[in-house]
């Protein structure tokens, strides 16, 4: 177990290193932060001074060396948008909000998707299945941006049940979490449905039925347990997708004070260092999510040996 974890973490480190390198190259090659930082009529000298300030005037190889040296020490540079602040501090300040939102969203998604998938599978091909499938397809095809505004208009403006934006009261999390959860729920429900149909068709289900076991017991205690691994895989993948992208859209729409909305600030301000820190922190998180998922596999299915 320990050995397995160490090996996974070592692979994770390699992944983070590769991501960092990619981020370094992309930010250095594609962007020119000095253009965004300075007024439009800034002189060539001013632009050069900013480049020198950021170390962008040095050869790429040298910049990369400095970058790696700092990275190892946990120094991801200072923000240009918020001068004098370490970008890592800025990201870590906002990270709890993002983790809270995404975790609530994935739990919500499972709460919606698992029952929906089971209902659909039990009556596969019937009207209930078709309705459940339509609902889940609607969910998974709605873009988060559009869905977010729809939820704001419906539950914020018309019904006035929830605040339209912000994070200053506990109920503020409901709408952004729903905007993240519904498309994800659609996907997990599809996965739940198809694996459940597979399981229901297996011989052991027939045996269980012939022994006189009730349907609920058969489905919940036997079939559902066997569906856990694929659903877990899907959920972990969806969670990573939220963290790595969807949360940016949803946090921006709902003015949620997490890393996602800060990503948009960083982009608008062309804060290269901050963007770099965000990508590296999120990449690290995703590596962690994957390791945790691997551990969970062996918890939910003792047949899977972690070695």
């Amino acid at each position, binding site marked *: 177990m320990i050995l397995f974890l160490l090996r996974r973490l070592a692979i994770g480190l390699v992944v983070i290193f590769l991501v960092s390198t990619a981020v370094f190259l992309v930010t250095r090659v594609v*962007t*020119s932060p000095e*253009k*965004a*930082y300075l*007024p*439009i*009529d*800034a*002189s060539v000298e001013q632009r050069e001074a900013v480049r020198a300030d950021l170390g962008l005037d040095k050869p790429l190889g040298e910049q990369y060396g400095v970058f790696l040296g700092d990275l190892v020490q946990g120094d991801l540079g200072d923000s240009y*948008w*918020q*001068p*004098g602040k370490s970008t890592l501090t800025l990201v870590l*300040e*906002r990270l709890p*909000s993002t983790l809270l939102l995404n975790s609530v969203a994935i739990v*919500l998604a499972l709460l*919606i998707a698992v029952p929906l998938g089971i*209902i659909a599978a039990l009556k596969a091909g*019937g*009207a*209930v299945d*078709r*309705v*459940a499938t339509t*609902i889940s397809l609607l969910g998974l095809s709605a873009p988060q941006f559009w869905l977010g*505004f729809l939820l*704001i*208009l419906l*539950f*914020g*403006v018309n019904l*006035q*049940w*929830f*605040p*339209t*934006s*912000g*994070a*200053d*009261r*506990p*109920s503020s*999390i*409901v709408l952004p979490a*729903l905007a993240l959860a519904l498309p994800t729920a659609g996907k997990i429900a599809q996965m739940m449905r198809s694996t459940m149909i597979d399981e229901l068709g297996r011989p052991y289900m027939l045996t269980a039925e012939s022994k006189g076991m009730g349907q609920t017991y058969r489905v919940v205690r036997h079939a559902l347990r066997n569906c856990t691994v694929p659903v877990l895989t899907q959920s972990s993948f969806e969670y990573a997708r939220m963290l790595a992208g969807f949360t940016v859209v949803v946090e*921006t*729409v709902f*003015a949620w*004070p*997490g890393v996602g*909305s*800060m990503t*948009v*600030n960083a982009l*608008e*301000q*062309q804060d290269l260092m901050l963007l770099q820190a965000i990508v590296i922190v999120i990449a690290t998180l995703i590596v962690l999510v994957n390791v945790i998922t691997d551990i969970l596999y062996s918890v939910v299915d003792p047949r899977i040996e972690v070695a």
Partner: protein
Amino acid sequence: MSTHPRSRWRQALVLGSALSLAIAIAACGGDDDATSTGGGGGGSSDGFVIAIADEPSTLDPQAQEDGNERAVNDNVYEALLVRDSETNELEPRLATELPTQVEPTVWEFTLREGVEFTNGEPFDAEAAAYSINRIVDPDYESAQLDYYGPLQSAEAVDATTLRVTTSEPDLVLPARFARLKMVPPEASQEDSFTEEPIGTGPYTVTAWDRGQQVTLEANPDYWGEAPPESEVTIKFISEAGTRVAGLRTGEIDLATLLPPEQAADAPQVLTKEGVEFPVYRLKNYDGTLVSKEIRQALNYAVDKDAIAEDLFSGYATVADCQPSQEGTTGYNPDLEPYAYDPDKARELLEEAGYDGEPLSLLGATGRWLKDAEMHEVVIGYLEEVGVSVTPDIRPFSSYIDEFTRTVGDAQPDIGFVSASNELFDASKMDSYYASDGALSSYVNDDADALIAEAAAAESPEDREAAYQELFALGCEDPPFIFTVNLQDIYGASEGLDWTPRSDGSLYIPEMSLGS
């Protein structure tokens, strides 16, 4: 979908259970805010709430050039002078009167007595001199330095007399002092100063919740009149649609920067001509546009009214043949916009012998309000009168490299830019009208002479006259295709009583929610 009667029942069942699930989820969350605000709507518990588009980069008022920072600090800090909200004229604030020019490069201010910063530090000539010397110090690297031009140093003569020195005679100096905020000499040297502002103004900052909001409270010891709203929250909401939704539920009382197409959804819309003048810069020293008649023809060809009405939904005003507005020093009240007259344009093109040679047009996209749409419209108008255009529309980061090429380098024939004048002084436009201006593609000896004349003028009247003449010259021999002056669009709750300011400042003491 099947129409079998049994399956309809099942559909209803499923839909019903899905709905009740949604309601159950809703109810769980609903409990929390039921006690605090009675749902999202019907006003909020936060007092007066303003939504701006982004978080301030810092709350040090002298460091950055950042409208979000100003939205907060315009209420916390004060400058020596201020612009009148209606006339845009300069008036004293922490000074008792407008400064006097005692020598060509020396000015004196008389300061208000008995003013204190909220930490108890006195505001006196020493503090004022410190504030000025702080911002011009090259090591401090203020991003606002562009506004302060030849400002060199300051010293206290006595407690209420401040002497300011410039490196060359500078008649714009009073305008500069409507922006330069006064900071406390002791507290501003602390590291915490970027997050805990301490000013002399009508409000103090009580909290800065990262990524969310800044809360303000009326300064109980303010030297002036107490503001009507004592508790204010400034929220950061980057999506305009979300700001509008908040206005509609009453969570927000005032929202900035609404796009024209969303303004109609706000309970109340407030507008003011802002500082942005989108223009198409014309290269007059080389190529087809050397001909003044062709440059005039381009101005006749574009329907400015249609741009204002249709593209900007009426939230724009046709510019008066100059990139400046009333209340700006140097504004020429006698100039009229070029009429929309395609026949006249064709006539002028023919007279000038335009041979159909394509004109290169450089434009940015995604940087300024509706920039890409504007290029389409303008190119359409030009082609309508027979002008051939080769568009080169780029994202800002690559556009700017091309646009900032100076006279003589490979400049485009036509280059879009949004000229802005936050200083409300014509000299801000030297960069377009002077042949050595940083953004100029216009070489005109008469214009250069007028700019030199303005710089050497001994009285504000002579200086203003020189700029008015410059703008008249630029109307007749145009360096631009002039278009419109964009309005700042604010959304407000129905009860809000406020007139937006030309300088875009969100000065909260001028706002009240009524009774």
